[in-house]
């Protein structure tokens, strides 16, 4: 058994866990549940992209996409959390 087949099986398991997280993103009782579920889905996507890159045998391209995706996901989660905390998008320090 080649190792790329094992990587494909691992990617399928990560996709299954993303589907399980999607349930919480749809039916979270509060809005914070949805934000957290979307953040978790984003980080899992940033991990599954290099696996797909190794499967397609072009990992250099896919790892750059994965790094930028992780950065955007982190900044987006922080901005949404601060918006929910303050109730406005931008306010000067008091």
């Amino acid at each position, binding site marked *: 058994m080649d190792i790329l087949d094992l990587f494909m099986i691992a990617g399928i*398991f*990560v996709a299954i866990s993303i589907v399980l997280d999607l349930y919480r993103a749809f039916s979270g009782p*509060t809005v914070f549940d949805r934000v957290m579920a979307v*953040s978790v889905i984003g980080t899992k996507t940033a991990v599954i992209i290099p696996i797909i890159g190794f499967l397609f045998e072009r990992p*250099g391209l896919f790892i750059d996409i994965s*790094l930028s995706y*992780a950065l955007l996901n982190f900044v987006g989660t922080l901005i949404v959390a601060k918006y929910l905390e303050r109730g406005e998008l931008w306010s000067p320090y008091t």
Partner: protein
Amino acid sequence: MEPLHVVSAIFVFGGTFFMVVGSVGLIRLPDFYARLHAAGKPDTLGEILIVLGLILYEPLSFLSVKLFFLSFFILVANPTATHAVAMAAYKRGLVPWRKKQE
């Protein structure tokens, strides 16, 4: 298969195990603050294990340096995002869940 590839496959499958367990906890646990435990810690560990497995698949190259940066960024960013969301929920007045008193 080479021996290093066997170690790489063990790391990757350990990471997927932690990821699936974290997802089950994210569905099953009763409260938002309890779900943060399932969302924050096992996912960070699983993602770092998967990226370490990918590093061991192709070690000592420019690619592995980029993968190491990705794992370090996940190690810093994921608990920070979890803490930010938890602090937002606490300041908006979300009451923690308690076991019912008889």
